[in-house]
């Protein structure tokens, strides 16, 4: 019994070798279809992994004022109001803003020096110690040719000359790439907002998060002259995150399913190359006693082999393109603002499910493209097909 199926495997692989041109075209078409799919899902998973660390390492609650439906600065005096609430471990002010350096857009972030971890993984240099010292991202350093000890100014405040004390490692995540990271006071001075934070990071005892969020939200409820407080808990951020990524990946997969459905007739035409000869061959093997089911099994094994060639090949090409060539040319289609050659490792994670899905897509495509024509040839009289 097994020997019979092994013989079919042998015949199927011989057929693939015999119709070399057709097989190469089918595999190349499949790789071209599957490559962007695998790459997009891998980059999405890579960004998702980095985002998850951003959520988990971030604060338990993010607090800002809400003015005109937008986040607005919080006075540092609010920290005293918040610190009295039971369950709050610490409240850290933060500055986040944007500024150009010439034509180059950067993100400016400021944190109090005493809130920084004891060691920070940098490409080179050290953490800022003196006034106006900053750490910059790897992309920014490369684009503007900045190095340790170099000085520059941000367009938003040209009176402050900033000095590079360190450069983030390119592995620090994609959001560090164009960052100017300064002490809280320096960042507040850069934006001319002393005594204000763009948001407050609230760290709480485990289990207190939801209750503290309620209390913080209600702090200004009684006083209509005070701005509305916007509170985002870690759980809420996880919700944005999970819903957003699932939706985007779902949309991408759905679009791909449509694209692949459209590719089926194209492949049907492509796989029709050499069908005349194939029809005669089917007629001959029918005449010597093959059953229709046996012919269909051989074609199924052929498609299985072609799919097992195309799907892993697409994954390996995508893997090499992203990991070895760092997504040269292709990564910019999936991550905005990174340019042709990113200065940081493109985040990508290759998971088993997209590989399996790619294989399934390839198998469905080739089966749809060949099964009907094979069955038609197999059920037609050998006298007709051998003509």
């Amino acid at each position, binding site marked *: 019994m097994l020997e019979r199926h092994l013989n079919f495997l042998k015949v199927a692989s011989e057929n*693939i070798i015999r119709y070399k041109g057709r097989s190469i075209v089918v595999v190349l078409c499949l790789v071209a279809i599957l490559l962007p799919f695998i790459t997009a899902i891998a980059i999405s998973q890579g960004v998702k992994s980095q*985002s998850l660390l951003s959520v988990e390492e971030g604060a338990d609650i993010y607090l800002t004022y809400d003015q005109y439906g937008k986040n607005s600065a919080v006075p540092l005096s609010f920290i005293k109001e918040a610190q009295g609430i039971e369950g709050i471990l610490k409240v850290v002010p933060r500055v986040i803003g944007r500024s150009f350096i010439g034509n180059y857009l950067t993100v400016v972030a400021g944190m109090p020096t005493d809130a920084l971890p004891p060691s920070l993984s940098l490409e080179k240099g050290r953490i800022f110690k003196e006034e106006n010292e900053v750490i910059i991202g790897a992309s920014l350093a490369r684009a503007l040719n900045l190095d340790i000890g170099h000085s520059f100014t941000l367009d938003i405040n040209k009176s402050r000359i900033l000095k590079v004390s360190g450069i983030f490692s390119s592995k620090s995540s994609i959001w560090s790439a164009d960052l100017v990271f300064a002490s809280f006071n320096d960042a507040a001075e850069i934006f001319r907002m002393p005594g204000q934070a763009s*948001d407050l990071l609230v760290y709480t005892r485990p289990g207190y998060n939801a209750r503290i969020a309620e209390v913080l939200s209600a702090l200004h409820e009684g006083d209509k002259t005070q701005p509305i407080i916007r509170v*985002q808990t870690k759980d*809420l951020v996880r919700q944005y995150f999970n819903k957003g*990524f699932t939706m985007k990946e779902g949309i991408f997969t759905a679009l791909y399913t449509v694209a692949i459905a459209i590719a089926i007739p194209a492949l049907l035409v492509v796989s029709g190359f050499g069908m005349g000869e194939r029809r005669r061959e089917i007629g001959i093997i029918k005449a010597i006693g093959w059953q229709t089911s046996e012919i269909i099994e051989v074609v199924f094994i052929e498609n299985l082999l072609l799919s097992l*060639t195309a799907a892993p090949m697409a994954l390996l090409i995508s893997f090499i393109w992203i990991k070895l060539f760092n997504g040269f040319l292709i990564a910019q289609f999936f991550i905005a603002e990174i340019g042709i050659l990113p200065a940081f490792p493109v985040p990508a994670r290759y998971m088993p499910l997209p590989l399996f899905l790619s294989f399934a897509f390839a198998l469905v495509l080739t089966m749809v493209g060949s099964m009907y024509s094979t069955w038609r040839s197999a059920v037609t009289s050998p006298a007709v097909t051998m003509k």
Partner: protein
Amino acid sequence: MKKDVIYIILVICLVIFAVAAVVYDSYGFRTGQRGYIHSFQKATGGLGLGAVTKPAWCYINYDTRIEGSCSCIEWPVPGGYCYCPDHTGSIASPHPSLPHKGGGAGLDGSKLVRK
């Protein structure tokens, strides 16, 4: 060795290499880059959520925690078409339509949700 046998061996090798790449990648992420990302995220208090390196248009795709509503809906025609490409141009972004806790605008900037 016959060509068909070579081809089957080639297919088996491709599958093994593809599976090895997937396994290596999941191991590599755990050991390689994680330390740097932890350190960066700890220092900045959690920065970045979407597939964009800087908020060239709005913060939604960069980090929804920083700004939950897209300011692009306010210009050039207030309430008109939102020209910001960041909402659709990426494969990964935080979901921009959840209301936030404590009042103010919904994350899509279109409605006020107040608790």
